[in-house]
């Protein structure tokens, strides 16, 4: 089973030099810690920052410099600030190369639900609907099952949809799965996890890749 950090580390393997990347709140944020050495990746924060750096020190903290999770951050050389309309122009026009998001549910057609649970207070979709409607390459980072042990990888979403047919890949604590026209394709297993474990934890259509490998976590 992968820890949250290991999920983030595995997703970081998808990065390529020169990528512009938008990371959602939670596990996705951790991906920034595992950018391969020598690779130049630029983080976009949809509240109006390109070239986001690490958290500031107590001395350099600036209330006018936050990320989309409302955390105080810093800038790296070559960064730029812009308004929210320009920020989503980047997103809608497909200039962001990779988007990493958390999810409540994903189905075997690549639909995603991550903004609303009926009966609970709805906080809002923020930028999630814009991101999933336009991103060229969306990877979902999440636990394979919910707290009640139910699968979050379904044939049909039970929760209100955020976007249709947009997820390309899911990395969970158990495995890596691609979304294909035939549904989920299990391509990599976490150490100590069996194919049967994934089958048991996956409610949607699932097939196992002929080239099934183990996730490299070192």
């Amino acid at each position, binding site marked *: 089973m992968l820890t949250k950090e290991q999920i983030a580390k595995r997703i970081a393997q998808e990065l390529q030099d020169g990528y512009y990347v938008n990371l959602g709140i939670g596990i996705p944020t951790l991906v920034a810690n595992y950018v391969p050495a020598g690779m130049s990746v630029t983080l976009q*924060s*949809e*509240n*109006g*920052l390109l070239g986001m750096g*690490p*958290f*500031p*020190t*107590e001395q350099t*903290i*600036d*209330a*006018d*410099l*936050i*990320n*989309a*999770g*409302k*955390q*105080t*951050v810093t800038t790296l050389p070559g960064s730029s*600030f*812009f*308004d*929210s*309309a320009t*920020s*989503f122009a980047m*997103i*809608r026009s497909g200039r962001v190369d990779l988007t990493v998001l958390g999810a409540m549910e994903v189905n075997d057609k690549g*639909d995603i639900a991550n903004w609303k649970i009926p009966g609970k*207070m*709805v*906080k*809002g*979709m*923020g*930028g*999630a*609907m*814009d991101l999933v*409607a*336009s991103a060229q390459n969306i990877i979902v980072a999440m636990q394979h099952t919910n707290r009640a042990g139910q699968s979050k990888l379904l044939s049909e979403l039970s929760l*209100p*949809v*955020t*976007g*249709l047919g947009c997820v390309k890949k899911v990395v969970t604590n158990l495995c890596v799965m691609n979304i294909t026209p035939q549904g989920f394709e299990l391509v990599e297993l976490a150490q100590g996890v069996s194919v049967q474990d994934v089958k048991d934890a996956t409610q949607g259509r699932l097939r196992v890749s002929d080239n099934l490998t183990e996730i490299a976590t070192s």
Partner: protein
Amino acid sequence: MNKICKNADQAVSGITNDMTLMLGGFGLCGIPENCIAALARSKVSGLTCISNNAGVDDFGIGLLLQNRQVKKMISSYVGENAEFERQLLSGELEVELIPQGTLAERCRATGAGIPAFYTPAGYGTEVADGKEVREFDGKMYIMERAFQSNYAIVKAWKGDTEGNLVFKGTARNFNPMMAMAGKITIAEVEELVAPGVLDPNEIHTPGIFVNKIFLGIDYEKRIEQRTTQEL
């Protein structure tokens, strides 16, 4: 033509019950603190507030919620606010949730005289309910409309007496589009200078969009998530 107001109270004095306001800011970053405080003092009520967020319990738009001055919020995310949740669940408060990019673009469209545009955000979701859906080049989009609002209230870093504005860092966020979109636009600034002091190349919001401007005071600039590291 004098755009300068003495203070926030004077700047918001034209705002009356049941008006629709646009308020700049993302979270508590770049919010018009002075004007919100003045609105709280003014006791106007029945307001519809278009703002990406709704503040926290005791700061930002949360202050107007505490006073029951807000009838409706139009936002993309209304998370961190217990009083908000209470009023929503009790039916005192109406909420319309809009994808953040659509919110930004609708503000921009308003300020650009564009009555409607198409965006893919929300297609296939409940956001599309009741809206025109249309295919362009094989992809599905929904039609979104510009807003109608009475006032836009924005916060800038520097401004001049002509109404030209410069924003700082991520405090820019929704402020420039909202400044464009107000029938009347009020700007509060941390530094108010004479015309010619700001480099015309570096102005983010040209003065034509700003009707009233004043020098704000006592900025608290509260931080929601104070994340730091030791080096």
